[in-house]
């Protein structure tokens, strides 16, 4: 039983982690492509259409990976988490079925037209199909996050005697106070990923001294979108999400901030430190007094409850993991804001191309948003443990009762093998696209 749950969890964590490498780029990138297309329509400047065309190739590859790795996600609710599906299907089935009905059909119908129909349907309609693909992918994110928000903070339900959750208020699923902040935060974060990737490839071409015209467009656009989105990620959306966690999951909050003791007169914010779960304290910590209280409650002296105030049995299972994920996300977020601000300043002063080091920095920073995004999800998901549905349904009670550990291990290994192959292919093909570079149409 223990093993079985463990493999189920590893399989879910592994497959969703891999899946999320792709939608985080495509959701953000679709907006940037729409921007390129729009600019082309307004200015009739061919180079923007060329930029759109180049990024559509990368989009197509990522989208394909997103689709291929997304299908197992949907199926896994039934295959590995049958008990969870049976008990909560009446509720999360709503949002998941709505995702299929409203966004997957939209995306998949217009994607083909968007990618291959430019000559067939003309420029204006082509812009429109791009817009629809963008709407479809953001709607997809909306329904998924609505599902997840319900698991983090269940609303609009009733529990029957047989343990089944039934929906009592449909509207509540979408007015869930957890949903809007999480959605906005997540979408800004996906825009951060896309901006960094666009800027990084721009930097690559500039440093390499080829495709200069396109490289400049990429870097400018990447920095503009990147600066705005990385600011949005921290404030207001990140801040708002943190306030939700304090309000609805105070134990999780204490664990992710690394606060063991309640401090009289206001909590410090931990910048660095390693949780020591034997002695229940942080080793080697560097902290700024009272700031956490201020950030959370706009008051330097409000008390924040430490972990020790709560019953140990209610603590998240993996406190160090939770703490590190959270600090990695926030730490990288700070670095990303700093880097983008600097780059924007250089761009404004026209120094950017001369200061090679910042181009190198942008290039090397492009994996950071991916790491921050995954770290953010790990924070959310590990913080929710040991619950599947917060405070109501334990993870141990959600797995399929009839699938043996041997079977789950087998499929887990299968997924690992398959995804390693997919990942290698993806990198190979991505490398080719980047290496070939954007094609330019002569005016």
């Amino acid at each position: 039983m223990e093993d079985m749950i463990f493999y189920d969890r590893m399989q879910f964590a592994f497959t969703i982690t891999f899946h999320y490498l792709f939608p985080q780029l495509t959701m953000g990138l679709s907006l940037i492509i729409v921007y390129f297309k729009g600019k082309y329509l307004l200015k009739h400047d061919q180079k923007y259409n060329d930029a759109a065309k180049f990024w559509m190739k990368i989009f197509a590859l990522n989208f394909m990976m997103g689709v291929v790795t997304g299908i197992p996600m949907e199926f896994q609710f039934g295959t590995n988490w049958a008990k969870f599906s049976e008990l909560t299907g009446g509720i999360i089935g709503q949002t998941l079925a709505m995702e299929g009905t409203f966004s997957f059909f939209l995306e998949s119908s217009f994607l083909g037209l968007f990618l291959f129909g430019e000559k067939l349907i003309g420029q204006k309609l082509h812009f429109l199909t791009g817009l629809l693909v963008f709407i479809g992918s953001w709607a997809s994110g909306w329904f998924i996050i609505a599902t997840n928000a319900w698991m983090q903070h269940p609303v609009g339900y009733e529990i029957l005697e047989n343990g089944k959750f039934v929906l009592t208020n449909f509207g509540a699923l979408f007015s869930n106070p957890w949903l809007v902040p999480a959605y906005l935060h997540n979408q800004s974060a996906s825009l951060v990923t896309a901006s960094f990737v666009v800027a990084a490839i721009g930097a690559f071409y500039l440093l390499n001294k080829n495709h200069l015209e396109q490289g400049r467009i990429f870097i400018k656009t990447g920095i503009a979108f990147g600066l705005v989105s990385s600011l949005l990620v921290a404030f207001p959306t990140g801040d708002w999400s943190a306030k939700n966690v304090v309000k609805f999951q105070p134990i999780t909050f204490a664990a992710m901030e690394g606060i063991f003791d309640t401090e009289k007169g206001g909590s410090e914010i931990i910048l660095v430190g390693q949780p020591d779960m034997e002695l229940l304290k942080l080793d080697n910590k560097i902290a700024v007094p009272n700031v956490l209280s201020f950030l959370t409650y706009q008051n330097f002296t409000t008390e924040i409850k430490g972990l020790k105030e709560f019953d140990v049995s209610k603590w998240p299972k993996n406190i160090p993991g939770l703490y590190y994920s959270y600090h990695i996300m926030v730490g990288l977020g700070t670095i990303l804001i700093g880097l983008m601000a600097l780059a924007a300043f250089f761009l404004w002063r026209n120094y950017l191309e001369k200061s090679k080091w910042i181009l190198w920095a942008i290039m090397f920073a492009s994996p950071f948003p991916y790491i921050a995004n995954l770290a953010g999800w790990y924070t959310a998901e590990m913080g929710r443990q040991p619950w599947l549905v917060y405070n109501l349904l334990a993870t141990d009670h959600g797995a399929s009762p009839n699938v043996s550990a041997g079977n789950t291990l087998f499929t887990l290994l299968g997924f690992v093998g398959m995804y390693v192959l997919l990942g290698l292919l993806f990198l190979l093909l991505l490398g080719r696209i980047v290496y070939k570079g954007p094609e330019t149409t002569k005016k």
Partner: protein
Amino acid sequence: MELFWYVVVISMLTIYMLLDGYDFGAGIVHLFFAKKEEDKKAITKAIGPFWDANEVWLIAGGGVLFFAFPVLYASSFSGFYLPLIMILWLLMFRGIGLELRGLIKHSMWYAIWDKAFGIASLLLALFFGIAVGNIVRGVNMGHVVNGVSTYEPHYFVLPLWNPTLNPLAESLGVIDWFTLLIGLIGVVALTIHGANWIIYKTNSTINEQLKRIVFRLTIVLTVLALVSLSSWFLVIPHLFENYFAHPIFWIFPLISLTGLIGLFRIKTFKKDGTGFVFSSLFLAGGLASTALSIFPNFLPSTNTINPSLSIYNAAAAHYGLSVGLIWFPIGVVFIALYFILQYRIFKGKMDDGDYGEH
């Protein structure tokens, strides 16, 4: 209300089989009959812009199943654990096979993805047929051994096969001679369906050959259908009970029969699309007849201790289902719009377009 969602789920899955079915069929034709590079290209072009949208019918159908019949979703997805995950893997291979093929222009690269696409299609057709076979045959609900349930009444677990391959054995497996037979029917029927789609959407040089193949396969299909019908009686003795109770159900077997008869005349059709219409009739009628033969059950129980999963005991609560009545029809209107648009833009023969080939 349950009835409405039953019709929705069955229709979505049937539409899925009709649409993705021609992709599988095209894959099988591609594997066995397309020798020249230009024919292979034509085939991938004929399904290129569609396969992804077709696959969404499965995902969305699964989603609606989850929403309307969570118990059935939980029970069957976990009970058919291994075969389902394998179907997933195959679907993934099929998808990347189609999408990656055109990205590098090299004959060895082509060869790899052609095979991936073809073999995955073949196995998928087989597996989906086997799945249908499993559903009509039923499963050991609650995993009853010696009169005692091992699991809660609505859970079961099936190994991939049982040692005797006997559908009447006490310990069942996913594969036995009966489900394998239905699987073969699936392969043959979808090959015909895919060949018809290729005839309809392309000018490839193999189209004439394909018509002959469709004709021969139709004979095979008829024989298989007759064999399966008689073995069907062996496995499920009261096959026709539902039909005598509700005579209106006879429409569906008749539709299927019309399709089959039509297929025999494949060589005489003036329009290239006619064959496709008939194979669609055959498939749709056949799937609907199968579903109705076990109605109102979804997944019959082979033991007498635990009940079958029916549209009533597997459904979600009423409030949730009735909210769905509001948003779902809106979604359907949109889906229909996209669908019409898509097929109008990509109408006619697809060989010469420079789209669809990735």
